[in-house]
């Protein structure tokens, strides 16, 4: 009684109509019959995919600038920001003649994200001062080996001929 949430139970006698159950059964069967014609909730997965938001946080991408040079300067802010400690990198100095490959004098020669550790929070892209790392709507697929989940630069850096549009996620930053 203290909580004032007790519910009064009604134990009234059922009428004859209720006691023979048949009207209730027929009513119930009518309900299930109606459901035959209702729209199905199923999404037939491989052929049909559930639409995701434009700002969905999926697999990461290391962006290139408009000339095709990698934006990342291996400052390590993403690795520091990462709550799951999924990011690791090795910084290197840009050599002569690599100006078209790397935007600034310092770059990440190794950049790895362990997708099993990653919680897809998006703090890395928030921390990035160079707009180099973004999360995309792409999903990380399942693998059989743990090693396969450690994504290196080969799978993270944006391909020159296959640019990924991340303008939707950028918008969020400016707001």
């Amino acid at each position, binding site marked *: 009684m203290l909580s004032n949430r007790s519910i009064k139970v009604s134990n009234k006698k059922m009428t004859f109509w209720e006691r023979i159950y048949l009207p209730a*059964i027929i009513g*119930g069967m009518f309900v*299930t*019959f109606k*459901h*035959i014609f209702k*729209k*199905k909730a*199923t999404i*037939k997965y491989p052929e049909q995919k559930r639409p995701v938001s434009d700002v969905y946080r999926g697999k990461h991408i290391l962006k290139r600038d408009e000339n095709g040079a990698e934006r990342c300067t291996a400052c390590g802010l993403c690795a520091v920001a990462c709550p799951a400690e999924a990011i690791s990198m090795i910084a290197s100095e840009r050599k002569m003649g690599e100006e078209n490959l790397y935007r600034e004098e310092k770059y990440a020669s190794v950049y790895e994200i362990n997708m099993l550790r990653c919680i897809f929070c998006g703090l890395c892209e928030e921390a990035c001062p160079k707009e180099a790392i973004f999360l995309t709507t792409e999903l990380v697929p399942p693998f059989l080996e743990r090693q396969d989940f450690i994504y290196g630069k080969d799978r993270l850096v944006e391909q020159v001929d296959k640019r990924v549009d991340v303008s939707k996620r950028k918008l969020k930053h400016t707001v």
Partner: protein
Amino acid sequence: MSTLIIIKIIIILVIFAITLFIAMYSTYAERKIAAVMQDRIGPNRAGPWGILQPLADGGKMFFKEDFIPAFANKKLFIIAPGIAMFTALMTSAIIPWGGSITIWGQTFDLQVADVDIGILYILGVVSIGVYGIMIGGWASNNKYSLFGAVRSSSQMISYELAMGLSILAVIMTTGSLSLKDIVEAQDGGKWNVFYQPLACLLFIVCAFAECNRAPFDLAECESELIGGYHTEYGSMKLGFFLFAEYINMFISSAIISTLFFGGYNFPFMHDLGLSSNALTIVGTLVFFAKICFFIFFFMWVRWTLPRFRYDQLMHLGWKTLIPLAVFNLMLTGGIMLLRDLF
């Protein structure tokens, strides 16, 4: 005489094949109906719309390890699914699937055997059917299986009484135990369901209980007894139990249509001007349409009603259905007596 035997053998084989085919596709229908009633899609991967699903399920069953638990009674464990299957298939022998057909100047009934005591035969075979479940549950040496077996045997015995009494009213009005005679008596839209609605209702309820179908599926109780009598079964032995259940459902639907819904009769069948053979074929198709409807009905009820509690089950059987059946019997007798008197 020899043509008669050949025709009968053909009928037996055809009925056997149809029974297995319908039982096979009942599993598909069950899953599909369950799905659409729950706003899902159901099996749709094996073949177009998933129509090869039963074959895939059967193939899976065959390739599973045929395991017999160490403490099980081996002989009984093996024999139980066989009994279940055997009794399930036996009932189809006396169901009149259609009228008579004339080939090469000889007339044949689309029925394996027109037994004079047809209904008694059905009741007899159905009551053997419980042995498959009972022996299976007992031989498994598992408490859940035993529970399932005990529940199912007492349930079947209780509901057989009401079932027999409800059929008795039909027998009284028809004056014959032969299923053929009962169907012929319903010719011209005089279906028993209009004359014996209460008996029909009682029979359908009892048929659900005899088939161990929801809401009377206490013998299996997936949620409580993890399968009941077939908990310990695997491979095709389990397949046989499940298959026997679907065959039982098919046969029950056939018997419901035969006893109460005119069998192969349909309204205005003599006004169509069809030849006798064509009429028989159309009648058989109508009969199968009725059977399919009742199979659907069985599934429809399964996905609508929750399971009974055990005491409710016994209460319904002994205190409601049997008195109602006796009342119906006396009412039928009284009306027949009055009709004779005046």
